[in-house]
């Protein structure tokens, strides 16, 4: 197995061991060395102790999924041997803290695992502190994979620069000590060598951050949230950049307040957004209906975790799709979309703000823990595709020309020109009761029908511009793989690894836009398919149910996973081969 061209590195130990910071440094080092990275963390919902892992895949081509098996395992405690040693590939290497961890050399030899015991604790102490065991292990890894310390030194410096020169120097010492230890003690060349390649203009980012960044680029004005894993990093990121970007970020008392605060800001004319996970979204549902009825633009993000209730707070799942489609009492139009990766999340961040304004309706974005917290390398974002479209917001001059302005006037396209509070001559009530054209409470039969129909016509307008599902692979193939959201990474990464003969028989359909649903396109694809495989992270196949509802097509062959873990590449490759 010499010259493997991708590497999976996993570091594991207790919370508080610096696992996350080691992983982030590892990712940045190889990104700058010209590689593509995807990372995945496993951690229980607690702050100290527990078993935490951070896994990174390094590849020469874009990567957005993880393997079950690893090539290098860094064990900072004994528990890692118990939990993760079996995941090491033959030919892989085990780096462990020989001061604290016992392993059987015979077993490693038998499994063809390179035995790299390092007294991480003693070396780290010598460099200035035991906490730096992670950095020593990072240095050791660099030697093992043939990556010189030039880039690593810079990344370590940047990472600790806020903590002062002494801490920086200690960490640099620790890094070099780890590197030198392996250099002196290990003879075999490791199966995967990752020397520096030509640099790319990539960034290393999560879909949470990229979606936030997309919204910022698209003129976001107001963001409110209540912390909830795995959505919190959107709040953290936006709060950090708020004052320098002119954004207002409010951590409110609960998700009900969050949704209503953002709605108040949107009513005044600020582009507004909220994010949460399933439980918080549940609290927002009544307000979601209010957005629909008052036709106030809003972007709501649900970064899914395992549900229901508190569920699996730090694990991934896609079981909120049907909930997002139906949340809130009554019928009203909404738009639901789901990014497949951090790049799509960036584009949806600004797109959603436009659509909320254009259709004066709630736009829901469904993401999940896997991409929401997983960093990936993507070409650095720019604002080439970012356009601002505020729909039918009136200028004062336009408003002044209207004789008897009615905010909810029935129009052919269902979209009514929108005045903003403070404008002269635009008075109206945004009313939680059914209302007439001016917003006055009105329970008349005909008015009710007119207003409901008017609101639904907006969705017909949106259908005209809604992008179709994406098709990958051979567009004429008869074997069709169907998925939505974060499974994009594992499906496409697995697909490219297949032999050409299998590849040519497969086409893949990704739903980015789930509501309104494109039944015609779906029928066209599925009716012309012989075999259909649906892949989802939930127990019943929620997209399959949606497809059945909208087209009558029942998909029997479903690959479903709901243990909180993402699909591993091994699982998808085997499923695609069997198709």
């Amino acid at each position, binding site marked *: 197995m010499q010259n493997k061209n991708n590497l999976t590195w996993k570091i594991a130990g207790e919370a508080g061991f610096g696992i996350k910071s080691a992983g982030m440094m590892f990712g940045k080092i190889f990104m*700058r060395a010209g590689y593509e990275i995807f990372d995945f963390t496993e951690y229980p919902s607690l702050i100290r102790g527990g078993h935490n892992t951070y896994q990174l895949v390094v590849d020469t081509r874009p990567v957005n999924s993880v393997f079950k098996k690893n090539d290098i395992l860094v064990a900072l405690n004994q528990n890692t041997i118990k939990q993760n040693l079996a995941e090491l590939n033959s030919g892989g290497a085990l780096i462990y803290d020989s001061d604290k961890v016992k392993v059987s050399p015979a077993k490693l030899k038998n499994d063809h695992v390179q035995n790299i015991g390092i007294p991480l604790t003693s070396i780290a102490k010598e460099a200035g502190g035991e906490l730096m065991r992670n950095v020593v292990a990072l240095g050791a890894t660099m030697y093992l994979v043939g990556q010189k310390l030039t880039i690593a030194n810079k990344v370590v410096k940047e990472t600790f620069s806020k903590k002062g020169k002494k801490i920086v120097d200690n960490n640099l010492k620790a890094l070099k000590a780890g590197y030198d230890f392996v250099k002196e003690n290990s003879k075999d060349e490791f199966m995967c060598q990752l020397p520096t390649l030509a640099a790319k203009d990539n*960034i*290393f*980012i999560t879909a949470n951050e990229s979606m936030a*960044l997309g919204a*910022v*680029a*698209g*003129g976001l*004005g*107001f963001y*409110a949230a209540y912390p909830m894993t795995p959505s919190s990093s959107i709040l953290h990121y936006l709060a950090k*950049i*708020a*004052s320098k970007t*002119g*954004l*207002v970020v*409010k951590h*409110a*008392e609960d998700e*009900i*307040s*969050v949704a*209503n*605060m*953002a*709605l*108040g*800001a*949107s*009513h*005044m004319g*600020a*582009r*507004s957004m909220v994010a949460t996970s399933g439980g918080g979204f549940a609290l927002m549902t009544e*307000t979601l209906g*209010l957005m629909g009825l008052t036709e106030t633009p809003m972007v709501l993000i649900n970064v899914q975790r395992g549900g229901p209730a508190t569920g699996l707070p730090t694990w991934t799942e896609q079981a909120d799709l049907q909930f997002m489609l139906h949340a809130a009492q009554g019928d009203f139009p909404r738009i639901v979309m789901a990014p497949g990766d951090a790049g799509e999340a960036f584009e949806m961040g600004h797109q959603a703000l436009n659509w909320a304004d254009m259709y004066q309706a709630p736009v829901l974005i469904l993401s999940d823990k896997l991409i929401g917290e997983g960093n990936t390398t993507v070409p*650095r*974002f*720019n*604002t080439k595709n*970012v*356009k*601002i479209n505020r729909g039918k917001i009136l200028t004062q001059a336009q408003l002044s020309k209207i004789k008897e302005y009615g905010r909810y006037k029935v129009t052919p396209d269902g979209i009514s020109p929108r005045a903003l*509070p*403070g*404008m*002269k001559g*635009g*008075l*109206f*009530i*945004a*009313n*939680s*009761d059914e209302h007439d054209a001016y*917003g*006055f*409470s009105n329970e008349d039969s005909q008015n009710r029908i007119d207003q409901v129909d008017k609101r639904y016509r907006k969705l017909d307008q949106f259908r005209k511009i809604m992008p179709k599902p994406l098709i990958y692979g051979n567009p004429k193939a008869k074997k069709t793989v169907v998925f939505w959201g974060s499974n994009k990474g594992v499906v496409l990464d697995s697909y490219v690894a297949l032999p050409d003969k299998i590849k040519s028989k497969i086409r893949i359909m990704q739903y980015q836009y789930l509501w309104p649903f494109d039944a015609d396109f779906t029928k066209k694809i599925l009716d012309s398919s012989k075999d259909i495989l649906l892949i989802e992270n939930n127990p019943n196949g929620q997209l399959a149910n949606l497809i059945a509802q909208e087209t009558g097509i029942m998909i029997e062959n479903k690959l479903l996973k709901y243990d909180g873990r993402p699909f591993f590449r091994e699982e998808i490759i085997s499923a695609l081969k069997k198709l």
Partner: protein
Amino acid sequence: MQEKDFNTSYEPSWCPGCGNFGIFIALKNALVELGLKPDNVLLVAGIGCSGNGVNFLKAYGWHSLHGRALPTAVGAKLANQNMTVIVMAGDGDSYGEGMAHFIHAVRGNANITYITHDNSLYSLTTGQSAPTTDKGTRTKSTPDGLIEVRANPMSLALSAGGGFVSRGFSGQADHLTSLIKKAINHEGFSLVDVFQPCVTFNKINTFKYYLDRLYNLDEQSNYKANNLEAAHKEALVWGNKIPYGLFYQDKRRSYGDHLPQLKGQPLAKRPVKVRNIDQLTREFA
């Protein structure tokens, strides 16, 4: 501007003699006397008899969900600090469904005015007990008498850091007008809890009930509204004598005043442009 300039074409749906009329007259008078125009006022209403008033007052209106008027108003104010934002909601809305929002809005001190229509009942839903109903009172939902004790909005607001804590009476529109004016002029969160007799469902807390008991703090020469301890003391007075007027006022900075990004033009009035993100992407490179 005159009071009638704040009337809409919508016929008020309140019962004849309802305490809500007095509050509305006072509110409209206050708006006129402050020289405010309908275009510059956002009235955020809760759900209840009181909230239905959003249809009768000419201004920009937001008819919220039950209990959720306050957060909406906070968001609206932060987005457009040029607007005068007034919230009106019933006691059920304010201290029942919306109690958490009430406490946190007081803490946050956004520059809005909160007028609660305190009739010690849920009236729109035909007369169940409210958080401000006295213990022991028999209502539709408590036929054997209410077990819970009465919530005390004055004490709660003072404990949460309220910078303008006051109580009015809808039977005294002149006093209420001046109280609402002070509240609107206050730079921060202002609470005006108004005793509002419900003539249809509440046979206890009538106009006479209040007239027999109320004494006006504003008229007491030895009462100073900047004394928190004295305010706490008065807030606890209940029974044969009940104080009203301005309990407490201080000069705590408002929420929006703390945000450098809100200096200058209101957030909602700034042209929305594509933001340059080159600098921001560097952190991830």
